[in-house]
């Protein structure tokens, strides 16, 4: 039964458990659908180092070639590296083989378009229609695509990041950095970047073999080893990556995991200080910390539905100075419209150097805030009823219905309840001045949802 439950096909891609639902058949089907959707052309494929990645890559390659697409394999690399390569190579699309922060048994496909941005909801639905209709356009033997390898993608990405920061300032500070790459895609590259910026680097979990020594999601509870290492080495900062290099968390010199919400807050602060124009963009579930950044730099803050592509499309439309998501995903538009740990580390270290500031000092510039994230099993068929119940429950308060229900309380507190894009759950997130209040706001919504049939 686990196998029956493990397949997720949705607008954010296709994800399953290897050996159960993520089969070669499924992958070639999606590859043929994507090749049919693109109507031929060049597709860049990158993957995280999960051991199943090569099996998935081979199935994807076969499927894409059969539709006349050619494939450029950029190998094991962070997801943002693949997105950069799509633009660099003038490709027609890209695919990341990564289940991101999910455990090692999972793998997934994420599809991006010619501008190196993931398919938006409408495009993803078109792709799913092609997949489900199954009328793939298969080319004859003399019109099949070819396979190439691009070993330079990571170095180009690193060079772009390096040229975007003040390396001298960072080198002058010569920070001691511990990086925990969870044996994921960013392992060797992150270390190289930090060294080139003049950091003293201690790398842990830095073998990109896809055997995750901790849960790959960079949440504080998963970062005990990193916190210990930061203290042990007397480091200035610790960085924790997820498996595919698009979510980053920070540990202070005191060895405290300050929470992944601060990653975007810090990076947004750095981006807003760097460039004169443009709003900041984030999603509805992201901490209010970024509101302080916007206020400090006199910028508008725009909020979108959750999902990288939603933030990115708003950033492009508004000429944003910076953006990202509260789960640790930072988007620096000067580099590319993708969540990028390498860019985030560069921005954060640069700002610390230029302002001669520790992580703790930077954190204290923000008001005290606590965010609580919870979830409740909620089959898709019940979500609408639950959202309706929540809206009625909070009648009279300020409510945003852009995605699910977001309710605003006194003192800047808020609660956001929304059905997940990737799992049959209701996500409930609340933020307030203190943890007790945030917890209470969260629990109230969970109870309403449960009573409504979740």
């Amino acid at each position, binding site marked *: 039964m686990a196998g029956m439950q493990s397949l997720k096909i949705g607008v954010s891609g296709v994800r399953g458990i290897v050996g159960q639902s993520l*089969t070669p058949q499924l992958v070639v089907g999606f590859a043929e659908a994507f090749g049919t959707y693109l109507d031929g052309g060049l597709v860049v494929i990158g993957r995280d180092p999960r051991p199943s990645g090569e099996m998935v890559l081979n199935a994807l390659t076969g499927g894409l070639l059969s539709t006349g697409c050619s494939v450029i394999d950029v190998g094991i690399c962070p997801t943002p590296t693949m997105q950069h390569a799509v633009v660099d190579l003038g490709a027609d699309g890209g695919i990341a083989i990564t289940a991101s922060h999910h455990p090692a048994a999972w793998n997934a496909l994420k599809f991006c378009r010619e501008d190196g941005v993931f398919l938006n909801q409408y495009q993803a639905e078109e792709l799913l229609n092609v997949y489900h209709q199954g009328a793939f356009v298969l080319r*004859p033997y003399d019109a099949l695509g070819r396979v190439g390898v691009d070993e330079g993608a990571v170095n180009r990405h690193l060079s772009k990041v390096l040229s975007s920061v003040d390396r001298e300032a960072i080198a002058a500070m010569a920070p001691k950095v511990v990086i925990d790459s969870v044996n994921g895609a960013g392992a060797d590259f992150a270390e190289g970047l930090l060294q080139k910026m003049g950091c003293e680097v201690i790398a842990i979990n830095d073998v990109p073999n896809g055997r995750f020594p901790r849960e790959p999601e960079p949440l504080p509870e998963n970062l005990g080893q990193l916190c210990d290492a930061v203290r042990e080495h007397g480091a200035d900062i610790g960085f924790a990556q997820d498996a595919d290099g698009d979510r980053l968390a920070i540990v202070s010199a005191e060895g405290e995991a300050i929470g992944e919400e601060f990653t975007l807050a810090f990076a947004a602060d750095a981006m807003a200080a760097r460039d004169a124009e443009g709003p900041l963009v984030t999603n509805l579930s992201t901490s209010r910390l970024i509101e302080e950044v916007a206020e400090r730099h006199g910028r508008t803050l725009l909020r979108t539905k959750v999902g990288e592509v939603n933030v990115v499309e708003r950033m492009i439309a508004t000429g944003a100075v910076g953006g990202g998501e509260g789960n640790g995903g930072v988007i620096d538009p000067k580099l590319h419209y993708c969540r990028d740990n390498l860019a985030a580390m560069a921005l954060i270290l640069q700002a610390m150097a230029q302002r001669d500031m520790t992580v703790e000092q930077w954190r204290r510039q923000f008001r005290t805030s606590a965010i609580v994230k919870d979830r409740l099993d909620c089959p898709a068929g019940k979500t609408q009823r639950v959202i309706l119940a929540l809206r009625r429950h909070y009648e009279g308060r300020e409510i945003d219905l852009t995605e699910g229900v977001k309710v605003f309380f006194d003192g800047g507190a808020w609660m956001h309840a929304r059905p997940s894009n990737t799992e049959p759950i209701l996500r409930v997130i609340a933020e307030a001045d203190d943890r007790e209040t945030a917890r209470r706001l969260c629990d109230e919504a969970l109870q309403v949802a449960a009573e409504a049939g979740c």
Partner: protein
Amino acid sequence: MSALSGEMSRPLKITIAGVRGVVGQTLTPDLLVNFSQAFGTYAGPGRVLVSRDTRSSGRMVAPCVFSGLTATGCEVVDLGVCPTAALQLAVGRSDAVGGVAITAGHNPAQWNALKFCRDDGIYLNARQAEELLNIYHQKEFTKAAWDKLPPVGTDRAAGERHLEAIRAEVDVDAIGAAGLKIAVDCANGACASFTPDFLRSLGCEVVAINDDPELPFPHDPLPTPSNLSQLRALVAAAGADAGFAHDADGDRLGLVTESGEAPGDEYTLCLATEMVLGRGDKGPVVTNLSTTMAVDEIARKHGRDVIRTGVGQVFIAEAAVNYEAAIAGEGSGGVVFPRINYAHDSIATLAHILGLLAEREVPMSALVAEVPKYTIVKREIACPPQRAYSVLEDLRQDLEVSWAEEINLDDGIKLSASDRWVHIRVSMTEPKIRVITEARAQGLAMDLADKYVRRVERLL
């Protein structure tokens, strides 16, 4: 009939000889990953070697095969482009549990196929292939967990090891001393990267055409006389001592004499048999029911028996093993040298015929002239696969056998007399019924063919 023509034109053959289809139509990535998982489930766990011929679609087929095999937990070793015989040798001489050859042999470029071999390097026999097909149809494949998926390995030396094994079996010094000038047409197939250098290593002067594995097939990669006009012209222009033509994956060999004549497919096995029996290799000759009677005469001359099998490489290979044959092969130009391998092997065949040329010190045309003269006529009749066997059964029930001394029903119907025979059988690879006849006199062979083609057509 017209209602069936749509069915007939759907180019897919899933048989005990493997799975064969047209790229862009029936040989889809989905079919390929399913078959590869079926084979991984059947043969695994363990190492599986994979080779391909030079067809451009091989680049699409190979990753599908890798993915399917890996998903079942098999460790794939990619041999790249090499003759199928090199794959079979590598499987047989390693701890691999099986092999997959990505090749449609002599079929045109739009086709491709998977052929499966077992741990001894021989293709699956009928019973084994049926087991594989049962797994395929049931679609209950072994699914290895994420941490049990071995990485894909590569071995690009299998082709060279194959050549080394052939060199060890021929008189290299005698061939070198003969100072032969050899023209070769590799059809831009799997032998293109191997044969010219191999011939030079034997001391031959080489004139090679269609020796670029990156280019498309210059003609159908079937080394039958109608496809050898370029080679014949080359032999004449270069003044070569002989010309040889490969198919796409190094199974079959075609011959051209120093005078630019293409004597026909059947001569390949005849000359190889003369060589191997002449040097005294022990054991009978194995060949199929459709192959020339000249083989019987050559065997008789050397005091050997001939064992006849159904048409198909696996029947030849298994009989060669079971009867401890000196040599085995088919009239279509595929020859097995049991001292090397139980595979149809065109490079080994070439080397052995060079050995015969060197030993006898006569021109190629003289070797050809030694072979007893028969005329063989090959015809084919399009027939929907769902009708083919019942047509043959109808024919069997209504046989006019007054002239025949022997009736063999091992593979279709074969009627033989001392000076002629007719073999009517269902093609394993195409929706066709084949009628092959042979007689000393050309007119007799043609008449026999006309007669039985008409009888089949009446039954359709």
